[in-house]
């Protein structure tokens, strides 16, 4: 007897370990339900998230049951199931329930859900543990039993009661990790839409993460590169100022309040194009000495002055309804061109150019030149132009 109890105890502990392992790996929900089913004594197991208002499943994991989309249960039967109509509304998070709480054998025989639907799958009884219950949503783990296995007895219900808190914890963990992954992924892709290069950098200059624009700048190799995982510059003064800026941020984190907060520095380009502007800023709270697992201490923005205008023109036309000709002139003026020069280089009469300019002013509601130029510049938000127009 004592030996038997010990084995049962060990089994329970091993099932608990299996449940928690499933929290880290959504692929193993089904085998985990198998372990729970075997321990509690049943023929199949499920983990279901139900939208209480529509009675539709938001998620369904099963062991030894037909797939959610394969059984009519989910479409029609669920709405008539006494389990959902009589039991679910009164259950709270953490509750453990069974059929006899709300129906007897005679009632089951008369119910199409029990007598027809469950019978066809050779199921009749269940024990259910509620993982979460709100007005909107119901999440539960169930073990299904055959007519032969009979209604669960007290020991089996007690076992389920032992397991439910662990399934809840594993389920919470899986949800939190999925949420964190979704947010991380979203932020990373959003960072890729930023027109400026963005890199997260460690105290030793190593790049922890670089967005698409920063990688493109590095690949171009026109003054800024990533070499051996480190930001590197063609321009010696830029290299020195950058190292200085990162060191300043590290000292700041170490508590040296006089250390510089942030730096902006130009990085000259061998091609002769306007220099990149680098902005180095400290990451997160500066009073946190411990750096996280990534070790990132600074964020580096690399701004390419030549890129922004190309991105701005599409936005410009859309925001003010400019024609192609008007937008082209606007760009030229923004770049420092004169109306006369533009007319000459584009083979236009000065009159035509002035007409474009008048329309530009009307459409943008700017009366004076500097104001117009400012307005055009203001439109150059930091978003990348749509990829299809590249």
């Amino acid at each position, binding site marked *: 007897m004592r030996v038997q109890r010990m084995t049962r105890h060990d089994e329970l502990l091993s099932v608990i370990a299996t449940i928690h392992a499933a929290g880290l790996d959504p692929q193993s929900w089904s085998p985990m339900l198998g372990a729970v089913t075997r321990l509690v004594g049943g023929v199949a197991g499920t983990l279901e998230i139900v939208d209480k208002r529509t009675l539709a499943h938001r998620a369904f994991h099963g062991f030894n049951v037909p797939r959610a989309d394969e059984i009519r249960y989910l479409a029609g039967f669920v709405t008539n199931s006494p389990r959902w109509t009589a039991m679910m509304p009164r259950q709270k998070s953490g509750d453990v329930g069974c059929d006899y709480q709300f129906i007897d054998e005679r009632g089951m025989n008369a119910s199409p859900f029990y007598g027809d639907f469950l019978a066809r799958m050779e199921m009749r009884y269940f024990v259910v543990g509620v993982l979460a219950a709100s007005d909107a949503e119901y999440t539960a783990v169930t073990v299904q039993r055959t007519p032969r296995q009979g209604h669960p007895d007290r020991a089996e219900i007690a076992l389920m009661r032992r397991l439910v808190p662990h399934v809840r914890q594993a389920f919470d963990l899986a949800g939190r990790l999925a949420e964190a992954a979704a947010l991380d992924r979203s932020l*990373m*892709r*959003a*960072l890729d839409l930023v027109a400026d290069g963005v890199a997260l950098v460690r105290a030793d200059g190593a790049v922890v993460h670089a967005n698409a624009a920063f990688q493109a700048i590095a690949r171009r190799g026109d003054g800024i590169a990533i070499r051996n995982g480190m930001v590197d510059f063609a321009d010696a003064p830029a290299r020195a100022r950058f190292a200085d800026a990162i060191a300043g941020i590290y000292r700041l984190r170490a508590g040296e309040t006089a250390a510089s907060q942030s730096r902006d520095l130009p990085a000259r380009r061998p091609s002769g194009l306007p220099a990149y502007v680098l902005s180095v800023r400290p990451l997160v709270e500066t009073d946190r000495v411990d750096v996280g697992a990534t070790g990132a201490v600074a964020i580096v923005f690399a701004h390419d002055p030549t890129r922004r205008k190309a991105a701005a023109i599409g936005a410009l036309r859309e925001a003010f309804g400019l024609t192609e000709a008007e937008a082209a002139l606007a760009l030229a003026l923004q770049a420092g061109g004169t109306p006369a020069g533009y007319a000459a280089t584009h083979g236009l009469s000065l009159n035509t150019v002035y007409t474009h300019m008048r329309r530009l002013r009307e459409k943008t509601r*700017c009366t004076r030149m500097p104001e117009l*130029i400012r307005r055009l510049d*203001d439109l150059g938000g*930091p*978003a990348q132009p*749509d990829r299809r127009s590249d």
Partner: protein
Amino acid sequence: MAAYDDLLVTIETIHAAGLDRALWPDALAGITRLVGGSAAMLESFDKRAFRHRAYIGFNVPRADEIAYLASQVTVSPRWSRMMPRQRTGDLGWDYQIIDERGMDADPFYGDFLARMDMRYLVAGVLHASAEDYECFSVQRTRDQGHVERREIDLAARLLPHVRHAWEVSRLLAAADEARDLMSSAFDLVSDGTALVRADGSILHTNAAMAAIARRRDGIAIRNGAIDLANGIERARFAAALAAVLRLRDGDATAPVAGEMTVARADGAPPYIVSVRPLPQRERSEIGGAAAMVLVHDPLGAHDAAAASLRELFGLTQAEASVAQALRSGVTPAAYAQTHRLSLNTVYTHLRRVREKTGCTRLAQLIRKLDELHPPLRSA
């Protein structure tokens, strides 16, 4: 049976600590009671740097309060003899490495531990490699005596759960850090940024977006979604968002990402709002953002510019101020008047700005100032 219930309850508190780091001392208290001891610790030790990465204790002095960590650790037979031979998943106790006579003669046992009324331990190794050593341990007093079979069995049963929960703590902390890194990058961007799910609800906003919404002069956040004050603009925004989502779902006929202006109540220059789709790389990706909404505030952008202008060109405060005013469309004469300066002084500033930036013409200067202005918030 009662002991078995205690074991199950303790295992539950261990996993609860995995989900919430603040609960580790509670879990260690449960472990201490279950195994029978006076204190417990959870330690993550960096072997190369010879320092703790993490140290959580129940009923023990704080890590920085005991000399143990600085000097005693180097002389402890536990560290010198027990740790090197232990593998992940091993259990350790004192009699493996030392007997009572040895303890009495050893300053670590006889002096340091004795002062804290501790003598024996049972430890479970969560992770052991060339770089790291992570373990949990239950400490016992001289009266409680050395652990026996029962205590070692209990520690063995707890070990896989502590390992798992510690791994969960680590994973959740790493996820938090990744989020903090990315979101602080966005907080530095001067434009308001919101990541929006397919149903229009907001997943994330940066600091600038929160500030714009607080201002309530055209753009607000209501019920977790972006809301525009003006009905026509609201409809345009909804259409832009819908178009972006269609584009994301592979509808190539959907119009290219929307740009629109949003008028402001106080007559300030309108906000420029851009909506961009966030690519979904795999069908299985659920729960993330579907679009990014950028709100550009022409006024706000100017504040940040002055500091970087001064740093980049070595402009004085006065010169940077004139440069900024020109950028904003103010004439030198108007600037002189509002700042009670002579027109001559303003022209002198302007000449120096031109010299320092190497621009000869006004439009060229304004362009240069704009180009060099990174889209970041002022520090």
